[in-house]
């Protein structure tokens, strides 16, 4: 239900009034993450290059961390790109091989390619935290491992005419590698680098919304030059342009991933 209808119905105080809202529900069911304490593992996977997997892994970790929930971005991609986003902000060296590299941001760490992700996740066991797995695009053992371990699979999509193909290919891949563990969770889609001035972007968004329904996360992440500028300076986009729309979009996604974590965090302490 759109927020304006919500407020109207509250003002009308007619309990059985059912509004027929043709406006597509903008926000998905509030609960994305399973509300259980422990580590939430989010694999960010896509068969296409350049959709922003690494950027999302690093910046979503940063956004979740700003909500006070420990977050770690683990790089499973041999290109080892996550590191670049924390270049300016990371401490000199890891304290131990099996612990994430601490960034200077509160609650945020990352693990460069080559470490054993299982070991790192072990160290987090028992705490409430969100782990983002950055995966390689091509089918590989790392990708398979990530999909096997993940509680949630987040598929970034660029809003271009190939969106329907990307959707079908991803669904087919996930069906092939289906594991009993993710019988409940299916992939959620996230539009990245949206520029709604372009007709093609708006059409692609509508196509994906029709295909993925409520599995399309909202809001879409806007295209923003600040992302590239942040990468050039080796930091997360929040530090580059805190007032930008892309930071607000990432924060809104983080809010959907982390509320249950935040509650669990309170329960832990």
């Amino acid at each position: 239900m759109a927020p304006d209808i919500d407020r109207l119905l509250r003002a009308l105080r007619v309990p059985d009034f059912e509004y027929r809202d043709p406006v597509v529900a903008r926000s998905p069911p509030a609960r994305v993450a399973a509300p259980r304490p422990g580590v939430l593992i989010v694999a960010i996977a896509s068969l296409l290059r350049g959709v922003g997997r690494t950027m999302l892994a690093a910046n979503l970790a940063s956004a979740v961390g700003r909500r006070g929930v420990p977050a770690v971005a683990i790089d499973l991609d041999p290109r080892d790109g996550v590191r670049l986003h924390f270049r300016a902000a990371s401490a000199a060296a890891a304290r131990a091989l099996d612990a994430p590299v601490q960034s200077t941001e509160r609650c945020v760490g990352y693990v460069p390619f080559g470490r054993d992700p299982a070991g790192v996740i072990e160290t987090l066991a028992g705490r409430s935290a969100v782990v983002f797995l950055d995966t390689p695009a091509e089918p590989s053992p790392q990708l398979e491992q990530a999909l096997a371990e993940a509680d949630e699979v987040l598929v970034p999509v660029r809003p271009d005419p190939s969106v329907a193909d990307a959707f079908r290919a991803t669904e087919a891949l996930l069906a092939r590698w289906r594991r009993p563990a993710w019988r409940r969770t299916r992939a959620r889609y996230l539009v990245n680098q949206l520029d709604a001035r372009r007709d093609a972007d708006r059409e692609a968004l509508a196509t994906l919304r029709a295909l993925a329904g409520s599995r399309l996360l909202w809001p879409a992440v806007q295209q923003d030059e600040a992302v590239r500028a942040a990468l050039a300076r080796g930091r997360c986009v929040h530090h580059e342009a805190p007032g930008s729309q892309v930071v607000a979009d990432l924060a809104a996604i983080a809010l959907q991933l982390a509320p249950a974590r935040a509650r669990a965090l309170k329960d832990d302490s």
Partner: protein
Amino acid sequence: MRPPEAPIRDAPRAAVIAHPALRRRARARWTRGRLLAVASGAFAIACLGLFVVTPLDLRTQIALAAGTLLLALLLGRRRGRAATLALVLVSVAVTGRYLYWRISTTLAADWSIDAVLGGVLLAAEIYSCAMLLLAYYQSAAPLRRRPVPLPPDPSRWPSVDVFIPTYNEPLSIVRATVLAAAAMDWPKDRLRVHLLDDGRRDSFRAFAAEAGVGYVTRRDNAHAKAGNLNHALAVTDAQFVAIFDCDHVPVRSFLQVAMGWLLRDARLALVQTPHHFYSPDPYSRNLGTAGRVPAENELFYGVIQPGLDTWNASFFCGSCAVLRRSALEDVGGIAVETVTEDAHTALRMHRRGWRTAYLGVPQAAGLETETLAAHVGQRIRWARGMAQIFRVDNPLLGRGLGLSQRLCYLGAMLHFFSGIPRLIFLAAPVAYLVFGRHVFNALPLAAVAYGLPHLIHSTACNARIHGRHRHSFWSEVYETCLAWYVAVPTTVALLAPRAGRFNVTTKGGRIGAPFFDAGIARPALLLAATNLAALLAGVWKLVSGGGEVDSLAINLTWALHNLVILSAAIAVACERPQARESQRVPVRVPAMLRFADGRTARGETVDLARDGASIALGSAAPLSRQQRVWVSIFSFGEERPLPAAVLGYEGSSVRVRFLGLTLEEETHLVRVLFSRADAWIGWTRGHRREHPLRTLAAIARHGAVGIGRALALSWRPPLALLPPRAIRPVRRAS
């Protein structure tokens, strides 16, 4: 057969009393209840009559007055409808006693000047007392209707024709209404929007085609708006008709909210919703009271229409309503005999046994008249129309109406005859203070002992009933502004109801510079000068000892009160500039700016208009004037960036002007701006309950400031360039 275990409470009433024994019992109970009501009513009226006519000596009368005031004070501390009704009863008793005393003892039975003047004053007083009683009756138990849910299956929803009549309004105003009407949430195959253009303009025809709505026009303009609507009725066929004046933009939920009652009750002819205005009316704009003092029309839509609805007498207001086609056809379409076709149509529907409903949920918003002169012109039309109906289709006479409906219509029509009585009250103190005439043939102390309780009770009672919808004494200001102008047309319409033409209310114009409209304020200026002279004469008499001190005191107080009200009425004629032709509406929704270099900034809209927006950014962004940006407003539906240029910025807030929007972009903007279902919901929020004396002081302050402004503005001759037109507003291109 009904299953025996079914609870009898859920059975339809007819089924319950179908059994002969039950029916007998029900009839007996009903008769008993009826008898009891009649008996107690008769007893109450007898008591009231006794209270009204019992003669008392002056001292006892003073004690009685003090007693009623004490009673009212005690009752006033209680909340709830019962206490309000008790207060109304006390007020009615006190007013009745005053009026009886006034008629029985204060009239001189001769043809002296004193007696004639006294008779005129008494007539005015009788009028206002009658209006007081009718108003009490109307608002005894306001019906706060809530919407009724529609059938869950949208395929069973009826078809609706939306009529948007226009004559000479600019396309820029009509566009928003058409686009928003077409965007209402209703099955698309059963929603047909028609632009009814009596101006026969090609630009309107082209726009209708572009927007995909119907365009209806006719060869002549017979019967103005009513004729236009009737013509459209003849060429369309949906079950229901929604009518919007061309500046009333509906929100997207309008039909789903308003239609429920019409589907539930097959004899319901129409559902009227309030006329909300997103621009301030001339009073609140020129006095600067917007947001603090309720708008002028709020009393009608907040108190009077719900009150009328109780008596099945709420009426059609020409716009923002849904009507049943069969009911319209039953009364021969929209009435064409008078210039207030809306109220007359509703009256005819009531005569034919149709019901009407008022739903106090603002689901559309329009533009107020932008000058006092235009407002006066509009009210002259209403007053003339109501007087015409009073003559050609008098609600007291004729078939089909119940007693309460007759009383309600009588109240609605008599209200517009307030001009002459108001002028009499404004002029009355002069008779004694200047000319030494005793229009009040009684001891001054007696006049106070009878009259003051009447005034106090009625003021306090009205303050309680009107609550946050009208503050005390403001009615007097509004009436004073209009008094002279409605006095003549109502009288003429009473004598010759067929004379005169329909005048279109001008809207959406722009006032360039502040000016004092001396033409429209002339009657108030004259009366103010008279009262000031009376005040000075009275003071001189007081000082020189040339009159009775108590009579002087009463009349001086009266003249002073008149001056306060008149000064406020003069202050309203100081027209303030209207900043922009497309009114900015405060809207708080998330927004984004996208810059040419590919960066973005997150913000929230502060206000929005058809041509621009103010946006508060989360943090300062690199901005420059005339910089090209794209504005995305995330209200609902899909994102559609609007091209814009930066007009100015300060800190993290930025003002932008939209550049050359396409029809799709304009539709998106109109939806964001006007279509939000909750856009006008908090229409009375922020108004506080008032204290009558404090309100009077505030009016005096507004008046004093306004007189100063009027003097300052009159001193500067160049401003006379703007024509200070009296009744006929000048159209300005917008």
